[in-house]
């Protein structure tokens, strides 16, 4: 119980920190983003009603003479309502709507890629640690090269080979524009087809970390007495490997999930750019190129919430796998 309270409390604190960071960053930076934004808006023929201007000012800060604390409170109120202002690059669509259409693409892509990468990486790492001294040891240096390859460069190479040269997969986009998005087979098939290369990029780049982490912990865990006891009990090798060694060896990897996820999210943003994937990463860059500060901040917040949520789920999972956390020891 204590564990859960602590965890929820922590993620609330992290969320608050992110929201606050979002409030202060534009205020601490040089330049006047609100004016830039307004100018952009006028270029696009947008009318600047006082209400929209006020929303921007709260978001980005400008010299209105209003006390900072008051600005902050109003800003928090807007955030609570999901009111991130109006996107300039997609004028006059509200930021929240832009995010809503692009978020599912990224969540599905990153989600599937992460699950695949964990399964493959942890699986290989488990076997490599268990059978140390065999050819599997050579997997380890091989994966470090993959982990050191920049995501976008790997994406470029994959596109060059499988897209341009071999023509197996489409070069860019999230689906074939001939189909209408929705729950129909044509569209889904097209989306999967388009998603394979981006997902492959993420999986290849992130699999090494999981492999190495689990392999090293396996090696340490194998010298624990309970593994020796399991062997002495005459249990089949598979059972000793999975239930006695790997279950314990996986704990630090799971606890370190936050770090891995951070890298994957970073990688996916760049990867989306290479593939012009209709996800949240592409939108973020679009926003950057158009000085669409409102959209930028909205995306940062939503990404943060998603990452925090994923970490919370993993933490809850951890407490299921490791009974000791539930006992109320320090989490």
């Amino acid at each position, binding site marked *: *119980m*204590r564990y859960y*309270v602590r965890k929820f409390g922590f993620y609330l604190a992290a969320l608050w920190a992110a929201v606050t960071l979002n409030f202060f960053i534009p205020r601490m930076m040089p330049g006047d983003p609100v004016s830039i934004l307004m100018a952009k808006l006028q270029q696009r023929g947008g009318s600047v009603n006082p209400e929209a201007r006020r929303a921007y000012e709260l978001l980005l800060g400008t010299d209105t003479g209003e006390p900072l604390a008051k600005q902050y409170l109003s800003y928090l109120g807007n955030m609570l309502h999901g009111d991130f202002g109006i996107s300039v690059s997609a004028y006059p669509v509200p930021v929240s709507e832009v995010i809503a259409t692009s978020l599912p693409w990224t969540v599905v892509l990153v989600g599937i890629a992460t699950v695949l990468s964990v399964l493959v990486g942890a699986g290989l790492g488990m076997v490599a640690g268990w059978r140390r001294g065999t050819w599997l040891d050579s997997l380890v240096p091989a994966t470090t090269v993959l982990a050191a390859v920049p995501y976008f460069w790997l994406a470029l190479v994959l596109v060059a080979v499988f897209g341009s040269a071999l023509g197996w997969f489409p070069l860019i986009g999230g689906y074939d524009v001939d189909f209408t998005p929705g729950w129909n087979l044509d569209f889904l098939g097209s989306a999967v087809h388009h998603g394979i290369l981006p997902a492959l990029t993420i999986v290849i780049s992130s699999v090494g970390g999981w492999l190495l982490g689990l392999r090293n912990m396996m090696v340490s865990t194998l010298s624990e007495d309970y593994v020796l006891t399991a062997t002495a009990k005459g249990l089949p090798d598979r059972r000793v490997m999975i239930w006695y060694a790997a279950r314990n060896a996986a704990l630090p990897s799971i606890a370190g999930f936050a770090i891995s996820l951070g890298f994957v999210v970073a990688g996916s943003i760049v990867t989306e750019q290479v593939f012009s994937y209709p996800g949240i990463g592409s939108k973020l860059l679009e926003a950057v190129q158009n000085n669409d500060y409102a959209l930028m901040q909205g995306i940062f917040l939503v990404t943060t919430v998603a990452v925090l949520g994923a970490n919370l789920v993993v933490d809850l999972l951890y407490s299921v796998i490791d009974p000791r956390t539930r006992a*109320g020891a320090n989490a």
Partner: protein
Amino acid sequence: MTTLDVKDLVKDFRIRTGLRGRRLRAVDHVSFTLTPGRTVALVGESGSGKSTIARIIARLERPTAGQVVVQDDDGGRVPDRAYRDHVQMVFQDPFSSLNPFHTVEHHLIRPLLLHGRARTGAEARKKAGDLLERVNLPARDIVHRRPHELSGGQRQRVAIARALAPGAKVVVADEPVSMLDVSIRLGVLNLLARLQREENLAVLYITHDLATARHFSDDILVLYRGRVVERGPADEVILAPRHPYTRLLAAASPDPEARGRSFDIDAAAVVAAGEAPAYDHRIQS
């Protein structure tokens, strides 16, 4: 003549269970005095509070209540900043009590310089060599070695030399031999005894082993759950134990002469034994 008085020491730990905290009394109103040339043994099982008392005396832990007072030769109270000139400690695990990164010399020179026993590096190095000779270690061979190049017994000797380096007159030895191989334990205990005689040290010997407590100390205090349940001269406490818990401990110790005796000890008896009122041989015999 440095003496150390432990007066009515109490230590509570907060334990977190669920959302609420709970207090655990680790040391419960313990008092005793360490005097020069004498050894007091603190005997108890794990969780009896014996190590907590050692840590409080070494000022690694603050007591919840009570105090530890050191008086120097003139009977004046030693001020806080000079406390560590007088009181030093030997730790249990010779494999972790020396820093693996540093040489034997480092471990001795630092306290010598810190406590003003040597003013220059050269003087400190010379005194470090002397200290090693005092604990029967070949100084020239080992001053530049690192802990992992020494055996467990050698390391514990270095640790003893380190405790003596500040010129301390009160030494707390927390299970100093329990991590050593059995065949070298007596050697280390005898070394401590010899140094005690030569320097007229006051020693607090903390152990779970009744036999060495009897042979290497003058007085014994038996601890159970933070309380002193029996105290008195070593032979009286061990040979004529009056408190049921002391008897239980004595009965549980392996005894080669008592083959085939019954082993009946149940948990309830242990708890019941602990509840009995304390016995003080000095007053009650």
